[in-house]
C-alpha cells in the first residue's frame, strides 16, 4: 500500500512536471513577479514549489521565451516576467499540443464517445 502511494506520488508529480511550462506561460500574458505568480497558480489550483518555479522562470528567460525587468516602483525591487514574442508563439503551439493530448487521452480512457464526437468537433 505504502509503496503504491509513493509510486502514485512520483508518477503524478512527473505528469505535473510535464505541464509546468505550459501552466507558467499561460499566466504570463500580463507581467508578474515570482511570488505573485506562485499565488496566482495556487488560486487556480496548482501548488508549485517556489524553489522549482523561480529557477524555471530564469531558464525560460534564458531561452528568450520571457522578458524580464526590475521594477523599482514598489516597496522593494521586484523582477517582473512577461511573455516575449517567441514565448507567445510557443504558448499558442503548446496549447494546440495540449488540446490534442487531452483529446487522445480522453479517447484512450474511454470518456468521450469513440471516434465520432471528437471528429465532428474537428471539422
Amino acid at each position, binding site marked *: 500500500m505504502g509503496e503504491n502511494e509513493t509510486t502514485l506520488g512520483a508518477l503524478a508529480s512527473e505528469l505535473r512536471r510535464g505541464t509546468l511550462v505550459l501552466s507558467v506561460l499561460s499566466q504570463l500574458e500580463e507581467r508578474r*513577479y515570482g511570488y505573485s505568480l506562485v499565488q496566482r497558480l495556487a488560486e487556480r489550483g496548482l501548488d508549485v514549489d*517556489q524553489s522549482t518555479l523561480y529557477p524555471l522562470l530564469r531558464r525560460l528567460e534564458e531561452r528568450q521565451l520571457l522578458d524580464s525587468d526590475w521594477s523599482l516602483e514598489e516597496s522593494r*525591487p521586484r523582477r517582473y516576467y512577461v511573455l516575449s514574442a517567441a514565448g507567445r508563439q510557443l504558448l499558442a503551439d503548446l496549447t494546440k499540443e495540449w488540446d490534442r493530448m487531452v483529446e487522445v487521452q480522453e479517447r484512450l480512457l474511454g470518456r468521450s464517445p469513440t471516434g465520432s464526437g471528437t471528429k465532428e468537433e474537428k471539422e
Partner: protein
Amino acid sequence: MELMERYLYDIGRRLPAKQREDIVKELRSLLQDALDARCAGRAPTEEDVAAVLRDFGSPTEVAARYAGERYLIGPRIFDLWWLVLRIVVLCMLGGLLVALGVSLAFDTATLESALKRIADFFASAVTSVFTAFGYVTVIFFLIERARRDKGAKEKLEQKIWDPKDLPRVPVRVDRVGPVGPVVAMVFTLFAMWLFNLHPELIMVFRSLGEDVHWIDGIPALNPAALAAYLPLWNIGWIAGLALQAVLFGRGRWELGSRIAHIALQVFNIGVFGFMMGGPALLRPEVFAGWPEVAVLNDMVAGSFRWLFLILIVVTAIDVIKNLVLVVRRAFEKTAA
C-alpha cells in the same frame, strides 16, 4: 533578517559567479514577499524567517535547481568533496611531517643533509597533494555520475536542515580592521627605534655556571652587516608604515594599496636575497666556545641561509596571493 542574509550567502556561494548577484537579489525580494504573506502585517520574528526558509528548501537544493547539473562535482555533493579532500590532504601532510621529524631527530644530520630532507619533504608534499586531489575528485565525479543517472534521488536532500546551522556571512577579505594596522605600526616603530638607536641592546644571554646567579650578555649584531642592511630595512619600514597608515585610514584594501603591498614584498624578497649573500648578521663569535649550541654556530656561519630561504618562499606566496586578488577584483569590476 540576519538569518535570511546567511541563507542567501550560502546559496550565492554555490551559484556560478556570473549570475550570483542577480539571482540573490531576486531571491531576497521573493523571500521577503513570502515572509510578508506569512506575517500578514505583523512584524516578522526570527522563527517566521526560519519557517519561510525551511519551506523554501535547503541552500544546496535551491542552488542546485538554479545551477542545473553541468558540473564535474555538482553543488549537492560539493561540500562533501571539499571536506573529504581537506581531510585526506591534511592526513597525508601530517604523515609526511611526522616522517620528516623522525628522520631529522634520529639522524646526526649535517646542515646539507637536513636541507635535502626538507627539500624532499616539499617535493613529496606537492606530489601527494596533487595525487590526493586527483583520486578524490575522480571518485566524487563517479558518485556524481551515478547520482545523476539514478535520476537524482531527491530523498537524500529532504533530510531536515536547520536554518540555524547556516554559515555566517564572512567579512570581505578586503576589509581591514583598525587593530591590525595599529599593531603593525607599533611593532615597526619599535624595530626602527631599536635597530637605529640602540642596536647594542640586541644581545645573546647565557647563564654562567650551574646556578644561574647572573647572566652574561654580549651584543649579537655584526656592525658591518648592520651598516650594510639598515638603510634597506629603513626604506622597507617607512614604506610599510605609510601603507599601514593608509589601510588604517581607508579601512579596506584597494587596488592601489594592494599593488603597493606587492611592490613592498618584492622589495623585501630582494633584501632577503641580498642578506643571504651578504655579511652575516650576527657576530661570528656569539656562539663560539659554546659546544652545546653547535647548531646555532653552524647557522651563524651559514648566515641563516635556510631561514632567509623560508622567508623568501613565504613572502613569495604572499605576493602570489595578492596578485590573484588584484586580478580577481579587476575581473569583478569588469563583470559588474
